[in-house]
C-alpha cells in the first residue's frame, strides 16, 4: 500500500434493518495517518457504518476496502489489522485489567504476549490498577483499558465508536492526546463523537444524519459549506427575543449559548434586513460572528429533515 493511499475507501454503503434504511449510500475516504471525526445525531447510522467497516455487519449494497482488504470478502484480514472500540464497554467485567488484555493478546496471537501486555499497561498508565477487576473501574479507566486492548496487536486502523461518552474532560483530553500520538505514528483513526471540541481536534470530519452522509471535509470547510451567516446578540430579554426572531424572514435558527444568542441564516441580506429592525432596541448588543461547527451541523440536519417531509 502506498503512503498516500486511502486506508478507508468505501462507496455507497447501505444497510437496512427490518425494512428501515439505517445507512443509506455512505461513502468515506480516509488517508493514512489521518484522524477522521464521524459525527451525527443519535441513531443516525454511525455505529452501523463502523460495524460494516470492520466486518461485523454485511452491507446490503455498496463496497469498498479497509487497509486494502475488501470489507465483505476479507473481513478476517481487516479484523486482524484493525482495532475496534465498541460504544458499550465490551470487555469482561469479571476479569482484571491484565487478564482482559492477556486474553485479547492471545486471541490476536500477539508475539511476545507478556511484554506486549506490560507495554500497553504502561503506555496508558494502567499499571497501578492492573489487577483490579474491570467491573470495578470508573468510566474513564474502562475507556483507557478498552483503548489499550485495541492497541495490543499494533493495528494500522482504529475504529472508535464514541470512545469518550461519559468520560470527564481531563480524561478526554488525555485520550485525544493519545489519539494524536497514534496518528502521528501512521495509524489511521475513525472516531465517532458528539462533542464539538473533539470534532475540532480531527483532521477531517464526516457528518451523517438519518443514514445519509451530509458533508465531509475539514472543520473550516464544513462551516463554510453550510453558507451560514451568524450574528451574536447579547443583552436583556433574550428568551423572548429568541421566540420573536425565529418567526422572522431570513432567520434559519436561533440558538442560545450562555448569555448570548446565535442568530444564523443562509441568506445574508435577508438576515441583515431582519436584524436591522432590532438594532435600535435599547439594551441589545449585536455583533457579526463566525458560525460554529455546531451551528453548521444543526443547519445540515434541518435541511435533511425538510427534504424528507
Amino acid at each position, binding site marked *: 500500500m502506498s503512503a498516500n493511499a486511502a486506508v478507508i475507501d468505501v462507496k455507497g454503503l447501505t444497510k437496512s434493518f427490518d425494512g428501515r434504511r439505517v445507512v443509506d449510500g455512505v461513502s468515506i475516504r480516509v488517508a493514512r495517518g489521518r484522524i477522521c471525526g464521524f459525527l451525527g445525531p443519535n441513531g443516525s447510522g454511525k455505529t452501523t457504518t463502523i460495524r460494516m467497516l*470492520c*466486518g461485523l455487519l*454485511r452491507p446490503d449494497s455498496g463496497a469498498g476496502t479497509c487497509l486494502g482488504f475488501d470489507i465483505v470478502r476479507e*473481513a478476517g484480514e481487516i*479484523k486482524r489489522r484493525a482495532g475496534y472500540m*465498541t460504544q*458499550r*464497554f465490551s470487555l469482561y467485567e469479571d476479569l482484571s485489567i491484565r487478564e482482559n488484555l492477556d486474553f485479547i493478546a492471545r*486471541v490476536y496471537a500477539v508475539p511476545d504476549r507478556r511484554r506486549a501486555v506490560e507495554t500497553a499497561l504502561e503506555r496508558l498508565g494502567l499499571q497501578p490498577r492492573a489487577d483490579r477487576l474491570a467491573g470495578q473501574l470508573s468510566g474513564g479507566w474502562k475507556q483507557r483499558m478498552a483503548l489499550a486492548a485495541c492497541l495490543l496487536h499494533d493495528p494500522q486502523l482504529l475504529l472508535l465508536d464514541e470512545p469518550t461518552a461519559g468520560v470527564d474532560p481531563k480524561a478526554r483530553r488525555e485520550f485525544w492526546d493519545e489519539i494524536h500520538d497514534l496518528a502521528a505514528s501512521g495509524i489511521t483513526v475513525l472516531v465517532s463523537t458528539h462533542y464539538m471540541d473533539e470534532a475540532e481536534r480531527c483532521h477531517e470530519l464526516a457528518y451523517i444524519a438519518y443514514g445519509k452522509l451530509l458533508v465531509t471535509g475539514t472543520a473550516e470547510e464544513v462551516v463554510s459549506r453550510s453558507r451560514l451567516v451568524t450574528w451574536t446578540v447579547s443583552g436583556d430579554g433574550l428568551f423572548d427575543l429568541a421566540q420573536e426572531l425565529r418567526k422572522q424572514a431570513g432567520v434559519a435558527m436561533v440558538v442560545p449559548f450562555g448569555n448570548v444568542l446565535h442568530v444564523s441564516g443562509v441568506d445574508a441580506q435577508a438576515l441583515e434586513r431582519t436584524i436591522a429592525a432590532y438594532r435600535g432596541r435599547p439594551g441589545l448588543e449585536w455583533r457579526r460572528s463566525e458560525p460554529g461547527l455546531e451551528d453548521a451541523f444543526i443547519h445540515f440536519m434541518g435541511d435533511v429533515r425538510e427534504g424528507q417531509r
Partner: protein
Amino acid sequence: MSAGSWRRFVAVLVKEFVQMRRDRLTFAMMVGIPILQLILFGYAINADPKALPTAVLSADNSLFARSFVRALENSGYFRVARRIATEYEAERALAEGEVQFVLTIPENFARKLVRGERPVLLMEADATDPAATSNALAALAALNQTALARDLSGSLAYLQNGPPPYEVRVHRRYNPEGITQYNIVPGLIGTILTMTMVIMTALAMTRERERGTMENLLATPVRPIEVMAGKIVPYIIVGYIQMAVILVAAKLLFQVPIVGSLVLLSVALIVFIAANLAVGFTFSTLARNQLQAMQMAFFFFLPSILLSGFMFPFRGMPQWAQWLGEVLQLTHFLRILRGILLKGNGAAEIAPELWPIVLFLLAAATIALIRYRETLD
C-alpha cells in the same frame, strides 16, 4: 392500602404484563412446559411395562414347549422377539439390552416331563431395572399352574395334581437382589451431566451476548469453532469430576457394583458430554438472554428425564414415546452406563448405543455452528 400505594402497585403490575408480553419465548414456555408435562406424565409413563421382548433358546420343539411359550405370550407381559440357537447369542442379547428375558428350554423337555422328572425351564431376566421386570416375573409365577393345563389330558391328567410337572427357575441377572439403587445411581451420572452441561454452556454463550462482550469477541479474528471448543473443554473436565464424585459415592454409599471397565466408560463419557455441550451451545445461539437459555435447557431436560428410562421403564412407554426417547442422547448413555457398570459390557456391546450419541452430537454441533454468526446481522 392507601390510594397512592394502590396506584404504585398497579404501575408495577402493568409494567410486568407489558414485559411479559414482550418476551414471547418466556410466555410460550410458561404455557408449553405444563402441556409437555401433562402429555409426558399422562400418556408416556407407565410403571407396568408389558410385551417385554423375550428370546427363546429352545432345544425341544415339543407340544409342551410350544404351549408354554404361547402361555407366556398370552399373559401379555412377554413377547417373543426372536429365537436363538446358542447360549452365546443369549448372553449377547441380554447384555446389549436387545431383550429383557431369555427363556431356555432344555433338551428332552417333553420326555422328562412325561416321565415326571420335573425338567427345569430357565428364565433369565435383565434385572438392572427391577421395576421393568418385577410384574412380568410375578405373572410368570402365576402362569405355572395353568400353562399346560390343556395339554395334560388323558393319560397325563394325573400330572395336573400337585406341583407343576416342571420347574421354572428365574435368574435375575446383573442385579440379583433387585436393588433399585443399582439402577438409579448410575443413571444419575447421566442425568446430572445432562443438566449441568446443557445449562452451563447455554449460559456461557448467552452471557457474552447479554453483557455486550460478544461484539468485542466478534471483532477479533477468533473463529466460531474456536469459541465453541474453548467454551466446551472446561466443562468436559467438570463433567469428568462430576462422574468421579458420583462413582465414588455409588461405591461407598450404595455399594453399587462396578463390573466393567472405567476406561471404556470414560471414552463413552467424552462423546456424551460433547453431545450435551453441543445442545447447550445451540440453545445459547437461540436464546436472547440467560433466562431464555435456562428455560430452553429445562424444556430439554424434562423429556430427557422422563423418556430416557431414567425414572420409568423405557419399555413401558407407548411406541411414539419410545421413538422420542431413542432420539435423546441420555437414553443411549444410560444403557451404556448400566451396561458397563452392572453388566460388565465391553466395547462391542456398547457400540450399538454409542453411534446414536455420535449422530446426536453431529446434528447438534451442526445446528450450533450454523446458528453462530460471525457478524451481528
